[in-house]
């Protein structure tokens, strides 16, 4: 598994831990009728599991197993900077979203920034992966 895939996949596993933990805490609170501050974390629960866990894992695995190069003559993944930028902005977006759950005007105003970073992340990622989606001859096989 290449280095960036390991970063994507390991980070996604961390979000699985945290997202499930928040979900478990919310379920417990619902059970005992607690309506406190924990419910501010509901959007964080959803985003961390949908984007931090599911999407990030898929991004890491796709980076690993899609045809490696954009053209049969080269053996390198193209535009890897874009893929790294996508990793960075996705995770910054998820952290900013968590900050935005805190009380106060300043924190609330961070939400659009989180959305913009998430959008940028998937744009970077699509731009990286697009040229790699092509027919592969048998001799080339899938990438390691």
């Amino acid at each position: 598994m290449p280095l960036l895939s390991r970063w994507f996949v390991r980070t996604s596993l961390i979000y699985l831990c945290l997202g499930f933990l928040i979900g478990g805490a919310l379920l417990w609170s619902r059970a005992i009728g607690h309506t406190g501050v924990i419910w501010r974390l509901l959007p964080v629960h959803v985003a961390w599991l949908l984007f931090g866990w599911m999407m990030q894992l898929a991004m890491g695995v796709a980076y690993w197993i899609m045809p490696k190069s954009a053209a049969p003559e080269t053996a390198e993944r193209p535009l890897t900077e874009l893929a790294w930028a996508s990793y960075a902005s996705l995770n910054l977006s998820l952290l900013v979203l968590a900050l935005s759950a805190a009380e106060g005007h300043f924190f609330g105003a961070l939400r659009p920034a989180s959305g913009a970073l998430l959008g940028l992340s998937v744009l970077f990622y699509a731009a990286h992966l697009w040229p790699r989606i092509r027919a592969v001859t048998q001799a080339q096989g899938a990438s390691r």
Partner: protein
Amino acid sequence: MPLLVRTFIKTSLAYLVLSVLVAALLFSKTTAATPVLTLVYYHLFMVGWLTQLVFGVAVWMFPVFSREKPRGNENVGWIIYGFLNLGLLMRVVSEPWHALRPNHVATALMIVSAILQVVAGWLFVWQMWPRVKGPKPPPARSKAA
């Protein structure tokens, strides 16, 4: 495909069917139970189907743990399977029950369900973490060669 993997994937397919049936029910009729059934539908779909499918495929396809134990500790794999599904099924029953008619049994079931699912998720991460690794370095050439 090992038995554990097949069990994860077949169970995930069962949840896919179940979640889409609940969705169809939700599309066709609005009742007092609609908000809580929507939550049930989301989690049947995202935990029962997608997360469980990912668990099964990851156990199967990720780089091997070691030559002797390619998929790590399979017993822990079965515990993850049991906890995730027991937890989810408990939630599917107890959450609507609690919402419509709050009672102590439903409360207890929800709490146990929360614990089981969180532990399943954490055990999965613990099992998979060492399997997220790079390719093996090529064997070192002997000096004599």
